[in-house]
Structures are given as C-alpha cells and as structure tokens.
C-alpha cells in the first residue's frame, strides 16, 4: 500500500496494513517534524508532492526492495500540506519472516525516498521559510 495524504497519518492503520500471519518481524519508520534545524527553531513544515509521479517512484523503490529482501507486506504513507511539530510526515512499515530483512528494507525505502521521490519540504520559521536542500 502506497498513499500520499493531506490527513494526519494513523500509524496503527499503517501497521495493521502489513500484518501477516507469516511475519516474524515488522519494522516501522516514522519521520516526524523536529522543532529545530541547525539550531534554528522550526514552527512547522509544509510538504508539497507531485503526486502521481511520487506514487510511481515509491512503487519503483518498493520493487527494488522486493528484489533484494523477502518482503511479505509493505505500507508507505507520506503526508502533504502543513505538518505540525511532532506529527508524522512519513510512515513506512514492512513485514518479513525474519527481522533483519525488515530493518534493512525499511531503511532502504526511507533512504531512497529521500533521493528520488518528488516531494518537497518547506521549513517555516518565525521569520521566514526555506525549501529544504534546494541550495548547495
């Protein structure tokens, strides 16, 4: 399951989506909004996605993960719009028979997501905002 949503992500729902009677381990990564970046206070984040392409790119990442690890089920939810401090920006869950594959594939998915998936994060400060990683 892959989704991009404007609503707050219900982590329990994402975990339930990867529940499998053959699973021995589930790894879940939750990317949350930090209250500061490089020492500066962040008020909130604002995410924008090129949705159809983001879904396609996420599917490619999952396909690559599946070719490397025996994944039973996966679920990825990425939020768009304003995300308040402490809220979930992204939740990734993977179930596998043995735990090592769950850790490795979940980490692979979030690492690759940050490289190729067309989603953009704007950090909003008291005195302005900045598109993250836009400039060198």
């Amino acid at each position, binding site marked *: 399951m892959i989704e991009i949503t404007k609503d707050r992500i219900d982590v329990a729902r994402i975990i339930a989506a990867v529940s499998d009677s053959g699973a021995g381990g589930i790894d879940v990564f939750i*990317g949350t909004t930090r209250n500061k970046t490089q020492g500066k206070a962040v008020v909130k984040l604002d*995410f*924008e*996605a*090129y949705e*159809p*392409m*983001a879904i*396609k790119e996420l599917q490619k990442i999952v396909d690559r993960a599946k070719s490397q690890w025996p994944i039973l089920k996966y679920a990825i939810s*990425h939020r768009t719009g304003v995300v308040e401090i402490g809220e979930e*920006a*992204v939740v990734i869950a993977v179930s596998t028979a043995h735990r090592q594959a769950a850790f490795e594939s979940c980490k692979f998915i*979030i690492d690759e*997501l*940050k*490289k*190729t*998936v*067309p*989603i*953009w*994060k*704007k950090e909003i400060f008291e005195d302005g905002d900045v*598109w*993250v*990683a*836009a*400039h*060198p």
Partner: protein
Amino acid sequence: MSDIRIKVVAYGIARDIIGGKEMALSLAEGISASETMSILKKQFPAFDQLSSLQLAINEEYVADSHPIKEGDELVLIPPVSGG
C-alpha cells in the same frame, strides 16, 4: 524549422522561481531536454543556484538527450526533500 509548444509545470522552489505553477514555452522542433533546460536557466538564472534540477515527462525522469515533443508537459523537479 517549425516551433513546438509545451507546458512547463513547476513544484517547490521551482514554482517560486518561475513565479507560478505553470508556464507555456515555444521551442524549436527537435530540441532536447538539456537544451530546454539551458533556455529555462537563461530565462531564470536562479535555477543555476539550485543543488540540482531534473526534468520529468509523463511522470518519469528523462535523460538529457530526451527529445521534447509538441504538447509535452515538462515538469521541473528541484532537489527533493521528502520524508
């Protein structure tokens, strides 16, 4: 050589740079993705200051040599920062 007309769609900081979500562009027939990028960078020098700028057509990243065709919707992908 006849002209082709395409639509440019921008996200994130690219949208801020072109000053809107979309713009129309007239290009020479047979032009490549990288040549189109050069034209955009001449028109909007701020693109040159980005860490990267990729192009997508039909929801797929395209290579530099990819030929641009009449009616294409060219999507500007500035450095991604999801997660």
